[in-house]
């Protein structure tokens, strides 16, 4: 088992990083009145951990007995019947799923699942009608329509089920959904907090940490706790005992993006653009999300850029990120950004150095 899973706090009491949030959630459960919840925050900050702990707090150990099922939903749209296959994890008390995997048919999934859950409401030990919890991941990836249908179903079935939504950016969730939920922001942990966690794990694993080692990993992880723990484990696998200047190897795709950035800075021509396209293809084939590529690429480019240009470049990156969401072929837009960058940068070089 990965350390990320092994040392995941299982209950709200044991949560260390976001203890304040955890306390509030505990109070919420104690009052027996749980509204719909929307967790949002950058990846690797502990949203999912909090959610799992919260569910355990609500239903006790029964919530930990999950089984995975690959369920096929038959959906009658009036004109024809759709069949969708979707993987979901469920226990007696909750269901967890990623509706955005269903692509543009996600709205049917959202409606159907909630409807079905509402039909068979569980009855708790005291014979009182209880509610079931539905955890939806990556809500920000849902299409606008799915979000709208989510809103309707949320209201209609609120008596029988509670939704826990989880996403990276709340700005991509519609206003209507946001206002129906209690929004919980989960910050990225600070570097100190990460160091504490790493030291805690090190103690449990009986490892000897050189001075500054944990801090270095924390910096490298860019305030992403999951990544920090993964880096930590990698270091352990690669070399133990740790040496004082040991660094974890960088992520391969990020390294690759760095190369692309270097390529772009070196030469600005259609030929180079074509070469860059091939490299993008390779990243895309490996399923790296184009948004992440663009983000990382921008970060890399900005590092080496004259500050006069930074503003303009950011503007274009945002522009093409938007286009990417509107369009269907990400590579078109990625390349358009690179071409624009090349064009601007070349002009800049010519005007400065002649």
């Amino acid at each position: 088992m990965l350390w990320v899973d092994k040392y995941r706090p299982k209950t709200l009491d044991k949560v260390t990083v976001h203890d304040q949030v955890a306390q509030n959630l505990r109070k919420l459960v104690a009052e027996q009145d749980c509204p719909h919840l929307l967790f949002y925050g950058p990846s690797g900050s502990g949203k999912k951990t909090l959610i799992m702990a919260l569910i355990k707090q609500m239903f006790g150990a029964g919530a930990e007995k999950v089984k995975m099922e690959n369920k096929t939903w038959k959906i009658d749209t009036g004109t024809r019947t759709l069949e969708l296959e979707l993987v979901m994890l469920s226990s007696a008390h909750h269901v967890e799923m990623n509706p955005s995997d269903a692509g543009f048919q996600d709205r049917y999934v959202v409606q159907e699942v909630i409807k079905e859950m509402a039909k068979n409401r569980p009855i708790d030990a005291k014979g009182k009608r209880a509610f079931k919890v539905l955890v939806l991941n990556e809500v920000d990836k849902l299409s606008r329509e799915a979000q709208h249908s989510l809103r309707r179903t949320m209201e209609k079935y609120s008596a029988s089920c509670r939704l826990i939504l989880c996403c990276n950016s709340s700005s991509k969730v519609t206003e209507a959904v946001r206002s129906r939920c209690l929004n919980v922001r989960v910050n990225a942990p600070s570097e100190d907090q990460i160091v504490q966690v790493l030291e805690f794990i090190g103690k449990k694993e009986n490892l000897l940490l050189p001075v500054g080692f944990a801090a270095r990993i924390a910096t490298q992880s860019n305030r992403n706790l999951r990544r920090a723990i993964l880096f930590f484990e990698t270091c352990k696998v690669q070399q133990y005992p740790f040496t004082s200047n040991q660094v974890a190897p960088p992520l391969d795709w990020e390294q690759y993006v760095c190369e692309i950035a270097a390529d772009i800075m070196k030469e600005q021509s259609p030929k180079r653009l074509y070469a860059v396209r091939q490299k993008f293809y390779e990243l895309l084939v490996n399923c790296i999300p184009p948004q992440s590529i663009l983000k990382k690429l921008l970060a890399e480019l900005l590092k080496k850029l004259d500050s006069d240009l930074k503003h303009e470049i950011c503007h274009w990156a945002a522009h093409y990120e938007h286009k990417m969401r509107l369009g269907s072929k990400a590579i078109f837009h990625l390349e358009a950004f690179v071409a624009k960058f090349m064009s601007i940068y070349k002009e800049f070089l010519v005007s400065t150095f002649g």
Partner: protein
Amino acid sequence: MGKRPPVVLLSSSSDEDDGGDRRAASRGPSARRARTPAAAPALAHAPSGSRKKPRGGSSAGRGRRRATGPAPSGYLKTEFDMLSEDFSECLNDLGMPGSIRQTKELWVDKYKPLSLADLAVHKKKVEDVKKWLEEKLKAPKGTFGGWTLVLTGQAGVGKSVTVKAIAAELRVEICEWTTPVPTLWTEHVHANSGLRYVSKLEEFENFIEKIRKYSLLSPSSIGSQRNLTIILIDDIPVTSGKVSFARLGKCLTDLVQSTQLPTVISLTQYHKSESNDTAMWNSEELESLLQGAGAHKIAFNPVTINSIKKNLVRICKQEGSDLTEELVHQIATSSGGDIRHAIMSLQYYCLDPRRINSSLATTAILPGLKGHDEVPGQDSDGRSSVIASPCGRDETLTLFHALGKFLHNKREPYGDVVVEVDSFPVKEKLRRNPLKMDVPEKILSQAHGKVRTVADFLYENVLDFIDDDAIDDAWTVVSYLSEADCLLAGSPIASARWMVNESYESESMTQLIAASVAARGVLFGNAHVSSSRWHTIRSPGVWQIDQSFRFRKDQILRERYDCSCTSGSRNFCDIVTEFKPFERWIGPLNDMPRSNSLHHKVEGGSSLIDRFGAEGSSSEEDEDAIEDW
């Protein structure tokens, strides 16, 4: 109407006499039935009444289309009126409503080339076919294979006529497959006439069976003086669906492998772009299948304009009608290398001398109009395709041809541009010389390509055509393509709404706009065309990437839950960007030799690309060379 059994028609080389009464025989009601595309060569025998109809439609459509053009509509209105007037007159002249008054033959039949010298086909091709036939006729019997010749080419380039003319010259008999009168399935059901339904394919199979038996018998029973026979298969039944195609294929392969008489199969090629109809896809497959079975292939090119012109002039002389040089030229160029079509147009023109004048008048008016039309580049031979004679063939372009036009981006040299007074002022930077081609939209509509395909192809190839210093241009082009992509994708709402009927219209509208944006963007953006070189058009890499991306994603999603049952599910993008890379060091791959991570990646990636390369070679028939023309 009786069902004709498949006939092995032994006709002497004096095919014309026979043609007359066959025509009379087929003038029953059945002659007006829809013809299969493969029956095109038989078209010449059709009674004129049924033939004129479709042409009427297309010609009227042409007039209408032109009337909606950008030029002042007043002139065009009168022109259109004139055309339609002409047209109705012609229809009357031709005795539309079934009057069988004219005993005149169609010129296509009347001036059918009787000798090799008359053929409009290129000398060398004729020579090739002749040589092959002579060789085979002399060759000893008893060997299997190598007895088949496949002629390919567009409709109306003279495939069958060549064979017939050569046969006449060599004094050999032609044994021909005559298409029997088809019984349509629906008719059969309704008429309930007690006839057995026989599909065309079945009939064809029977025929082939007979030939095979016949050819096996011939050396012994008929004797050596009568063995100078060739078999001409002109009309291959249309098949739809894999099963019937396989039957046809098997039947033909059997024929090719077992025949002992020289057999000529003529296959009409269709433009790729026209063949969205699945029934027509076959022609290429069939061709390769026949070649695989050991048939020799000779491809006919479209007849050259000069050769068509020569023939037209000859016919004019014999008919005693004096058409002007210009008109003959026009007919020749607008026929697109289809000599049968050209002759028929000629006959149409010669029906009534008045008409020549009027249609000449229309062409005389038009150049005046085009003077201030915004569409440039019609001075020389570009015009004839735009101002086609009322009955010219609609031109079609292949997709690659259209792409080539966009990518090469031919423009008038700067000096020729007349600055238009009323056009609004444009900055120097944004000004472009007039295009040396039709309006991009027109080219797109001629190419029949799907918009998505066009955009992908343009995207894949355009960088090759941009000058190496002009990165600004590259940006302009790519940004337009990115806009086009957005238009094509529409919002997610639009894509999910595809089943609603009313959205069809707007969808196709956005499609058209997207195509226009893509094509014009490429034309406008590429301001500094790199010096013209020979380029190969690659098939879009995006397609392969998309495919393998989906495959990978499915794979990852399937694996996702194996490891993480205890701790809830993981998000897809987290897996890809974080867990997957780490998996290389920790987790299942623990024992692997730990070399530098990136090497792994790059190697893996490049082997992936290699695999694409291998796959790509199978789809290489997509690739097509575009030469600089």
